[in-house]
């Protein structure tokens, strides 16, 4: 068995991607994820695999488009502004049903913002920042270990569903170090043959990778097939963690780095006799609506905690569907909610006699 090493989240993710069978990486530098690109620049050629520093994020996502079409495992990574530039490309990948992994190590926005951590691209990731009715699977690690571990399902899910899988981290997760145990390559799922890939049509009929259909009923049918696929994913691929929900009166919902703040808050709250519990979505899409709805049957109220001004908040409200008030607390622009501030919020909300009013 191999030993734990102290490594940054970005590097853990990059090494895990290579172990998960990444065959080509295309990317453009941007802070706070340069360690990924730089790691790939070093390691991919060592492995005899493809590394290209693209001229832009637009080029990167379209190189991914080409690489994915050959049936190879491909990925790109960037941070918020660069991911915005990829939105057309992600919509194209989705329309053409090409498997690909896109990593977004989010930073403060909007605009150029800064290079501090953020979770302000949740909407973009889960709702499709690009045009058209498509979805990407969104995985949200919360530890450096998970930055590595989630890369294996990321590539598997991409191949299984011919879909874009986005890994949504933030500046802290990318830059922080924790002890990590790195897995060997392993495929957890039975994956379909890539008979749609462009490998030359010798011995078979022409393969076409495309997203256009000028005939409305045909494009509608394609869309319906996509929707059907999305339903299947919603049915089967939700990942979620929860704790102390049996008797929780207040349920805190948070993902990624915010979920770690929330864990500490909950254990401190419990020490102060507040019946708190937490839910951490690992897949942001498909969203663990059912798990949250189940918690809503018992809990008195919900508190969503984000490094943003309330984006996942929407999904929590939809899932809770009025069964309990849903509150929100969060900070953005690179700021991180502190344990103390969130704990105060919990106490305020749980004040005996206080009527919880929704924000």
């Amino acid at each position, binding site marked *: 068995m191999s030993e734990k090493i102290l490594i940054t989240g970005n590097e853990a993710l990059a090494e895990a991607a290579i172990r998960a069978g990444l065959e080509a990486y295309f990317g453009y530098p941007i802070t706070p994820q340069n360690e990924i690109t730089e790691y790939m620049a070093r390691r991919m050629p060592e492995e005899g695999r493809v590394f290209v520093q693209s001229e832009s994020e637009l080029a990167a996502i379209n190189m991914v488009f080409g690489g994915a079409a050959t049936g190879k495992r491909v990925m790109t990574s960037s941070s918020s502004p660069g991911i915005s530039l990829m939105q057309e490309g992600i919509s194209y990948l989705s329309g053409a049903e090409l498997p690909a992994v896109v990593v977004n190590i989010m930073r403060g926005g909007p605009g150029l913002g800064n290079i501090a951590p953020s979770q302000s691209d949740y909407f973009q990731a889960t709702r499709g920042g690009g045009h058209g009715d498509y979805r990407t699977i969104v995985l949200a690690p919360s530890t450096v270990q998970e930055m590595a571990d989630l890369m294996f399902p990321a590539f598997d899910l991409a191949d299984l569903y011919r879909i874009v899988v986005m890994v949504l981290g933030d500046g802290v997760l990318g830059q922080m170090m924790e002890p990590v145990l790195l897995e060997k390559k392993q495929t957890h799922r039975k994956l379909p043959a890539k008979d749609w890939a462009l490998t030359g049509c010798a011995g078979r009929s022409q393969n076409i990778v495309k997203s256009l259909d000028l005939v409305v009923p045909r494009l509608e049918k394609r869309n319906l097939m996509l929707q059907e696929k999305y339903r299947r994913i919603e049915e089967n691929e939700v990942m979620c963690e929860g704790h102390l929900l049996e008797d929780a009166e207040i349920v805190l919902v948070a993902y990624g780095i915010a979920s*770690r703040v929330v864990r500490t808050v909950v254990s401190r709250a419990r020490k102060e006799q507040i019946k708190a519990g937490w839910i951490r979505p690992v897949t942001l899409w498909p969203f663990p609506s059912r798990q949250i709805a189940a918690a809503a049957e018992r809990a008195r109220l919900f508190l969503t905690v984000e490094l943003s001004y309330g984006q996942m908040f929407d999904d929590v409200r939809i899932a809770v569907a009025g069964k309990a008030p849903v509150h929100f607390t969060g900070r953005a622009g690179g700021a991180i909610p502190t344990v103390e501030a969130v704990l105060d919020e919990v106490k305020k909300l749980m004040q005996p006699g206080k009527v919880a009013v929704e924000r």
Partner: protein
Amino acid sequence: MTEKNCREEIIFAGFGGQGVILLGKLMATAAMKAGYEVTYIPSYGAEVRGGTANCSVIIDNEPIASPLVTEPDTLIVMNQASFDKFVPKIKPRGLLVMNTSLIETPPDRDDIEVMGVAADEIAHQLKSPRSANMIALGVYLKKRGLLTPQQVAESLPYVLAKRHHDMLDVNTRALMHGG
């Protein structure tokens, strides 16, 4: 590790070239090798280049939830600007290790323990001006006893870039110096 609830949150701070980032990595690596749970977070100042740098390390024998340090148990601080910024954040009854070679004022808090060390001067005496950071860390290790200077020194090869391995010895000596 047998003690219960052993947890230490440290902020290392100084300006760009002072090697505080290295200190954090070193401490985190050594603690990991000693079997602790650890987290390390770098944080660069507002300026793109130069300016101040700091990092936070948490060492715990339980899994670490939030890796963010807002109120450190210990601050190891190498210059005045960082001193001004971080001293107010130290937990009551916390520890301050300060580089008196570059910090002129004493802290205006009486609820913390203060250890001054003329790190730059001592490093100069050791003929290794760039080891001031190790001097400061040595002082801290002597005080807190979570890890021995020897344990920490053994992790030096893992965090020091290969091209600086000629500095392993002098850094080890600096660590052992203890102020």
